[in-house]
């Protein structure tokens, strides 16, 4: 209470100090007068009375000073004085101030923008209860001599672990897919759906906003179809109607009753089926939640149905390591006791880390790069500040001689940097609003949690923090210089000469070297990213996308589903009619069909089983299955290497296959695969693979094609769609006209056949290629801009230091010229001065790069980190830039007029 009152009174006094000073003076004057009056009454003369009064009072000035200290907050006043002084200094050199603030605003703005993405995508915990206890649980294949591979979960294994493990509180199993929704009988949309065990919301600690979550009875066989809506889909499909609960929504052609709506903060993340391998997944926001009813097969198979994802909640106080150890041991024990032909274990990853695993490396790299750019900018400013500090040496000396303490000297100089950094930081935070928007337009759309990216309080705090760090980085060295000033010598010396002291020029050279070192690391990383990106685009893909338009349709409507009825026949009929209709569109040359849209990840992954050549289970090579039509191979221009393509004649006996060269190599080593049979690959009408299913004869070999993804060279088996009409159809239309004109025509043609099929994807194949490498392009574009910024800053840094030193030495150069030194000798002198920091910087930068690159390697595609072209090119670029920066000052040195230079003294 008392302390607070005193503080308040002191703060009040700060703002009224002028009035209060007058008040105090009046009071003290009154005191002296009263004392004089008393003294005179006692018989002293006026003069004597005054002397006595003053003597009795003690020091008037000291009293006033003590009084002031007692009254206000002296340290605050000191700061205010420093700030006023700093502002005055900065106003005096507007060029420097503007440059510094602009540099800082851009630098801090860029760092803050990148950080806001890093924060939302990588750091911010999910809005679930105790999110740090949530882990993603996957099975792992542990074969001797092979790398451990995490795979999706089997339902039976999940049930066992959930019941037996003691380190986890609970676990929920789910699958993420696309569901077709047609609210009012319109053409259906595909939205992201989560089909989950009923405990999912309880596990996450999410309470529905309206209605209820799932009950265990909702997941019983034969239970009524129910759905929980995300907040977004409640807005979209029911316009936020509070009476939506109890109404129905048509999902995949079935009416489902809405039982609940989730709160707006509940963003369910897209969790990869398996790390590292990209699977064909609908990377959309989860907008519908349905209870998972396990199929008979889910409950009985140990070796199939690895189709699920599991989130588990660790018990409080249980570490990841302990939970991992327990679950892994349980699963290993089960694998042994059940005599499974695979060695299965369990792998856990924290939820936040898992969701961001695909992008975290790229984002951290960008964050490091933008941090390096800011660092380089700070070094530039440090150099400028140092030059100013040198110029201010006389003034510092005067202040030191007049009794300013060392702390005061340092703090007044440092305040200037702090003022610059904080105003620059504030401007940077404003710029970051635009920066975040720019980044979001570049970031690939499949990065998780992008809708959570915005300038939040932690991001702004970060901006403030980084401003302080910047101030320290560029302000501390020049400020400390103030300490070293010896008033006597500084006052005596000409300030111009003092500036050229060995110490300060060494400090500046070191800073330039540090700057160049950072720049070269950034340049090498950038050129490696560019090399990797260009390799990714220019490598042999095994197909040609130009003039091809892609339309992906989904036959999730119930009439196409089988369950014993004639779903297969209806799908076949739809596919045939669509192919015919598309072929008749104007300008169309050919229409290919494939079951999964190209470049969206792995498809149906299975094992290659040969009846004539049995291999132990789980040792068979893995293959990707695509269902295609005979026009696929010529339309995609994938070379046929051996054998023949499908023909219309195969329709009568559709059990034939084309295989890729890799499949031939791995499945038929040293044999001619043509005419051999494979089995267990064509599903029956219940979508399962019967052990005694059709034998499929290999009739041809096609070249390897990176059709799953440009980085993915999976072994492929192509089967004709007649054998099993797929649920998802991708039409690839080669035409002479542009995609834009063709797309509406294609849409009309497909919806004429059935208006109730969804067409979620419609674009040119060139766009599809470009979208599929969005992460790499993002990395390349952003790194290139940071690299360019760093190079520019480094160029300015070298130029600034040289130009400054030439201007300081102009007298010396004048004398040299007057004494007969040749101009070329002077140019050489300046260039030699530049060469020292440049070479030092480039050398240490290369050494740093070798350390840093080890970490970058995983972000590159088939590009060695020690790529000579990237490293050599970067060095040459940097040296060229440094030479360019040195040319102007050295020419100026050579053109100094000796007479004018000597007169300047």
């Amino acid at each position, binding site marked *: 209470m*008392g*302390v607070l*009152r*005193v503080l308040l*009174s*002191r703060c009040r006094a700060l703002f009224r100090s002028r009035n209060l000073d007058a*008040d*105090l003076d*009046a*009071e*003290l004057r*009154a*005191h002296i*007068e*009263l*004392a004089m*009056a*008393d003294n005179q009454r006692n018989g002293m003369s006026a003069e004597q009375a005054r002397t006595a009064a003053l003597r*009795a*009072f*003690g*020091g*008037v000035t*000291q*009293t006033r000073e*003590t*009084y002031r200290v*007692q*009254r206000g907050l002296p340290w605050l006043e000191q700061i205010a004085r420093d700030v006023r002084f700093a502002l005055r200094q900065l106003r005096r050199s507007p060029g420097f101030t503007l440059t510094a603030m602009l540099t800082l605003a851009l630098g801090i703005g860029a760092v803050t923008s990148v950080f806001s993405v890093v924060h939302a995508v990588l750091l911010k915990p999910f809005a679930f209860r105790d999110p740090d206890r949530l882990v993603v649980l996957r099975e792992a294949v542990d074969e001797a001599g092979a790398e451990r591979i995490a795979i999706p979960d089997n339902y039976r294994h999940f049930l066992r672990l959930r019941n037996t493990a003691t380190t986890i509180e609970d676990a929920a199993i789910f699958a993420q897919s696309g569901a077709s929704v047609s609210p009012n009988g319109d053409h259906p949309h595909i939205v992201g759906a989560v089909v989950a065990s009923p405990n999912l919301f309880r596990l996450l600690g999410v309470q529905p906003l309206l209605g209820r979550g799932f009950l265990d009875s909702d997941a019983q066989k034969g239970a009524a179809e129910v759905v929980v809506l995300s907040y977004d889909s409640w807005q979209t499909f029911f316009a936020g109607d509070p009476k939506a609960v109890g109404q129905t929504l048509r999902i995949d052609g079935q009416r489902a009753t809405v039982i609940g709506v989730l709160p707006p903060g509940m963003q369910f993340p897209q969790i990869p089926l398996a790390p590292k391998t990209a699977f064909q997944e609908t990377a959309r926001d989860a907008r519908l939640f349905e209870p998972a009813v396990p199929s008979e097969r889910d409950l009985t198979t140990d070796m199939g149905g690895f189709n699920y994802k599991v989130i588990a909640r660790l018990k409080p106080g249980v570490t990841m390591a302990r939970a991992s150890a327990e679950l892994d041991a349980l699963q290993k024990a089960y694998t042994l006791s059940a005599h499974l032909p695979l060695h299965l274990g369990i792998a856990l990853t924290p939820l936040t880390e898992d969701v961001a695993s695909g992008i975290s490396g790229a984002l951290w790299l960008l964050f490091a790069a933008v941090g390096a750019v800011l660092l380089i900018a700070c070094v530039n400013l440090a150099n400028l500040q140092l030059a100013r500090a040198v110029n201010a040496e006389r003034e510092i000396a005067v202040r030191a001689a007049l009794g300013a303490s060392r702390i005061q000297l340092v703090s007044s100089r440092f305040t200037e940097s702090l003022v610059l950094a904080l105003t620059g930081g504030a401007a940077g935070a404003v710029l970051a609003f635009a920066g975040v928007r720019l980044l979001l337009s570049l970031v690939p759309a499949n990065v998780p949690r992008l809708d959570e990216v915005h300038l939040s309080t932690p991001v702004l705090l970060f901006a403030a923090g980084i401003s302080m760090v910047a101030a320290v980085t560029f302000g501390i060295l020049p400020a400390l210089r103030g300490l070293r000033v010896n008033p006597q010598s500084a006052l005596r010396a000409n300030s111009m000469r003092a500036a050229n002291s060995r110490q300060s020029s060494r400090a500046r050279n070191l800073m330039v070297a540090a700057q160049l070192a950072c720049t070269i690391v950034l340049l090498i990383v950038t050129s490696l990213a560019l090399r990797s990106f260009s390799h990714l685009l220019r490598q042999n893909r095994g197909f040609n996308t130009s003039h091809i338009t892609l339309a992906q349709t989904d036959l999730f409507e119930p009439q196409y589903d089988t369950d014993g009825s004639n779903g297969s026949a209806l799908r076949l009929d739809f596919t045939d009619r669509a192919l015919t209709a598309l072929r008749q569109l104007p300008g169309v040359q050919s229409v290919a069909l494939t079951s999964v849209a190209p470049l969206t990840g792995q498809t149906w992954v299975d094992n290659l089983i040969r009846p004539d050549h049995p291999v132990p289970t789980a040792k068979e090579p893995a293959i990707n299955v695509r269902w295609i039509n005979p026009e696929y191979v010529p339309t995609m221009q994938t070379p046929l290497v051996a054998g023949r393509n499908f023909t219309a004649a195969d329709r009568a006996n559709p059990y034939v296959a084309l295989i890729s060269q890799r499949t031939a190599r791995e499945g038929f080593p040293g044999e001619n695969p043509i005419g051999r049979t494979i089995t267990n690959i064509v599903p029956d009408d219940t979508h399962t693979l019967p052990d005694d299913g059709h034998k499929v004869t290999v009739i041809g070999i096609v070249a390897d094609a990176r059709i799953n993804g440009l980085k993915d060279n999976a072994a492929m088996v192509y089967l004709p769609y007649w054998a099993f009409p797929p649920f998802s159809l991708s039409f690839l239309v080669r035409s002479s006209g542009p995609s834009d004109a063709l797309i509406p025509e294609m849409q009309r043609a497909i919806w004429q056949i059935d208006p109730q099929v969804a067409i979620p994807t419609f674009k040119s194949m060139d766009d599809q290629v470009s979208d599929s490498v969005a992460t790499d392009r993002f990395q390349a574009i952003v790194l290139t801009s940071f690299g360019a910024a760093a190079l520019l800053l480094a160029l300015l840094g070298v130029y600034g230091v040289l130009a400054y030193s030439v201007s300081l030495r102009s007298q010396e150069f004048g004398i040299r010229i007057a004494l007969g030194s040749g101009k070329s000798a002077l140019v050489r002198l300046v260039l030699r001065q530049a060469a020292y920091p440049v070479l030092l910087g480039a050398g240490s930068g290369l050494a740093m790069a070798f350390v840093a690159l080890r970490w970058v390697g995983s972000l590159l595609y088939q590009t060695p980190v020690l790529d000579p072209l990237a490293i050599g090119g970067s060095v040459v670029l940097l040296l060229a830039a440094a030479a360019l920066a040195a040319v102007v000052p050295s020419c100026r040195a050579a053109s100094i007029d000796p007479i004018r230079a000597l007169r300047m003294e």
Partner: protein
Amino acid sequence: MGEQKSDVLQGTLDLMVLKTLESMGPLHGYGIARRIEQVSGNSLSLNQGTIYPALLRLEQRGWIKSEWGTSETNRRAKFYSLSRAGRKQIEHETENWERIAATMARFLAPSS
């Protein structure tokens, strides 16, 4: 109230000022200084100036109030008077001082 309890001299001056105002009523700074000198029988060497930071301190704590007025010799001067909190504080300070004095006395008493 944890502030500055170690400084005995300062505490003493504060108490003297409060006691003076209690017995004399509203008084200006010079008057307070003179009164303290008189009561101490001029045995206290007090720079009159030191009274002002003390007065400010007491005012900041809310124990005394000040207002400008006219002195007995018709001069403008700032008059200080006790606040209600100040009266209470006198009791507290007196007790405190007596305890210290008693303790000191025990130390200074000739050991038997």
